[in-house]
């Protein structure tokens, strides 16, 4: 009990000193908002971001059936000019329009930047390397499984594989739902045609003249599936994953803002933790040590103080970004989603991880100045690596190195929440573990230190 009170006393002193220092507050709160907004405005397109050119690989393994290749329909829909080079006479280019729940419309050709590949393994590897957001792999028996005939009356399509990049928050989801949409249209078309053929066959049986005509038409009778999408049907509506969601993901303010927030949180944590070395310099640490206060209590007090400061800072920054974004968009939008519990848990985990990083520099540093320099270098490296200054996707196949930075772990999860994706468990666990581990190491080092 007494020790708990002491922890709070130490933490409170820390908070008091921090929050009565105007210059520090400016760095903690104003700087990240300003920097992130400037970077976002420089990179982004302000309030109405458009997404374009999601990199997609498409592999058509479909062997077709009866001279028909349904898989090619997907290729045509995604790859401009594919129809002309496919050699399939029945095919034609179709420009599919994608619209989201908000009504925004985009041409599928603009939305994606699709490449036709032959090898599914190559396509998946490309996704793993970050070259593509998703790979669409059309199975060999796709046409077969969707063809309606008298022998094959049940349409039970072999699913098309959409292999997504787990590192991207929702682009694979968008591709997935587009593929699903097109498949549905295709099946609808097939059934309509099949029903028509059934009707014709029935009529031919009843009407010999028509039957004769029908039979002599022979191979000329080829239903044209190339654009099963004409007129109204040419417009795909995506319900599950809105493009607006994707736009938020590409809202630079989310990506840069969350990374900047975590980046500045590292600085704050570092400053908070190195206050223990300032305490050493002005002998207040020694005074605490000669009082009946165990060292672990002193360090916990510092941790709680640092943690709380960082948490307050993060909350403030995320509210700040929401306000800035709402101004840009002209209406109140919850930039970070509305999964409040996930958001709170993530904020706590991020603050803990940042505090842990700060603690370790304080535990090994000789002086406050030295620890601040080490801490700044670590913060800047993590910030650069973690996407505080550019979008991590720009690193392509080297994107994995960004996971050395807790800035990446944090901002990735915040971006997911912003996109309405609550799948942040791994990030939260990682951040919590790293924070706890670093604190445990600092405690061990600090307890063994003799040069107090």
């Amino acid at each position, binding site marked *: 009990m*007494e020790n708990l*009170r*002491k922890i709070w*006393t130490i933490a409170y*002193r820390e908070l*008091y*000193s921090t929050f*009565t*220092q105007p210059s520090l507050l400016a760095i903690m709160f104003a700087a990240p908002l300003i920097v992130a907004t400037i970077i976002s405005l420089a990179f982004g397109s302000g309030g109405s971001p458009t997404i374009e050119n999601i990199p997609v690989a498409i592999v058509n393994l479909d062997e077709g059936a009866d001279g028909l290749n349904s898989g090619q329909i997907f290729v045509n829909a995604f790859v401009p000019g594919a129809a002309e080079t496919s050699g399939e006479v029945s095919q034609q280019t179709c420009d599919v329009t994608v619209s989201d729940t908000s009504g925004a419309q985009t041409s599928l050709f603009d939305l994606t930047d699709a490449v036709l590949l032959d090898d599914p393994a190559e396509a998946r590897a490309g996704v793993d390397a970050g070259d593509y957001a998703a790979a669409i792999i059309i199975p060999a028996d796709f046409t077969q499984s969707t063809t309606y005939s008298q022998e094959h009356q049940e349409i039970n399509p072999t699913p098309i594989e959409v292999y997504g990049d787990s590192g991207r928050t929702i682009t694979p989801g968008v591709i997935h739902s587009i593929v699903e949409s097109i498949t549905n249209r295709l099946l609808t078309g097939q059934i309509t045609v099949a029903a028509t053929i059934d009707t014709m066959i029935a009529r031919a049986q009843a009407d010999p003249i028509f039957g004769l005509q029908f039979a002599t038409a022979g191979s000329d009778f080829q239903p044209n599936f190339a654009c099963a999408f004409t007129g109204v049907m040419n417009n795909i509506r995506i319900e599950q994953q809105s493009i607006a969601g994707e736009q938020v993901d590409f809202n630079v303010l989310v990506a840069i803002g969350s990374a900047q927030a975590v980046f500045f949180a590292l600085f704050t944590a570092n400053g908070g933790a190195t206050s223990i070395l300032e305490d050493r310099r*002005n*002998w*207040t640490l*020694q*005074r*605490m*040590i*000669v*009082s*009946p*206060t*165990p060292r672990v209590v002193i360090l916990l007090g510092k941790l709680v103080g640092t943690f709380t400061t960082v948490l307050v800072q993060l909350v403030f920054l995320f509210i700040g970004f929401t306000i800035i974004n709402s101004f840009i968009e002209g209406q109140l939008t919850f930039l970070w989603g509305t999964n409040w519990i996930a958001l709170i848990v993530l904020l706590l985990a991020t603050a803990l991880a940042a505090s842990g990083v700060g603690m370790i520099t304080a535990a090994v540093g000789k002086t406050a100045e030295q620890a601040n320099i080490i801490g700044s270098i670590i913060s800047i490296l993590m910030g650069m690596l973690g996407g505080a200054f550019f979008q991590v996707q720009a690193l392509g196949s080297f994107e994995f190195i960004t996971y050395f930075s807790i800035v990446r772990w944090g901002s990735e999860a915040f971006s997911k929440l912003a996109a309405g994706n609550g799948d942040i468990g791994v990030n939260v666990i990682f951040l919590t573990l790293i924070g706890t581990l670093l604190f445990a190491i600092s405690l061990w080092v600090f307890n063994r230190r*003799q040069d*107090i």
Partner: protein
Amino acid sequence: METLVEARGLVKNFKRKDGTEVQAVKGVNLDIQKGEIFSLLGPNGAGKTTTISMISGLLTPTSGDARIGGFSITKQPMEAKRLMGVVPQEIALYPTLSARQNLNFFGRMYGMGGAELNKRIDEVLDLIDLKDRQKDKVDTFSGGMKRRVNIGVGLLHRPQLIYMDEPTVGIDPQNRRRILDTVLRLRDEYKMTVLYTTHLMEESQELSDRVGIIDHGEIIAMGTVGELIQQVGEEDQLVLKIGEQTIDTSLIERIPKEIQGVTRAAFEPPGETGDQTSGEVIVYAKRGRKALPHLIQIANEAALEIMSVEVREPDLEAVFLHMTGRALRD
């Protein structure tokens, strides 16, 4: 008499930057009795702070241990620390907090709180005479005021024992006087036990019930001021300043023969030591004041003009000089 602090064989080795070791404290034994002012007197670098750091639980001794009220500082540090207040040599305060906030913070580190702490802070502010400046930030204070707050923090939890490490360093005579008076009050009014370190012989001599003289990490003498002086003999020094005049050696030789109680006499011409601008006749006598009239008479007969006369009673300075062959001051 009850022993409150009992240190045995305290040794502290430090690693220097170049990797070599220095032994800052070389096996110190201390017994501080309840209710006394014990001073540790020694020049800069003697090991006073290092010793205090070990017996307050700030530094782990390389070897040896100390018991505070029966509790081992290395094995039962929390119990031992509760008994003591510490006034470090450095100003150990948060500069951006006010005097009151500092007292409040450290009071809580001793487990105090609430109305009791507030009342105690008022008492301490009274004692250190800073009630009117209590709300001001410490970094706006003068050196003397900071020193007083520094002492106040050590007194907050009403410890029965207080360590004060050179609490008068670098302050003006007025503030120094105030602090010395406070230290005496702590013993006399509050029945506290005080361990006081200093490199100033006068302070030690004025305050202490007992003194330990420390040099190069070793206690070289310990006892009451009187006992220590007795160790070097009880002779007074009579110093006659005679300016630029020269003096016959036969006259110097006459002095111990003719004046009763004088053991020896010497002449130091001007410029011999330090910044001395006047020649000095130095006469050692068991009871200096008694020998003085006769001495002046002899000087008059020899037509010596005496500029000033000084009687120096034996002091700790002399003890230190006697034991180490060096002056305490440098």
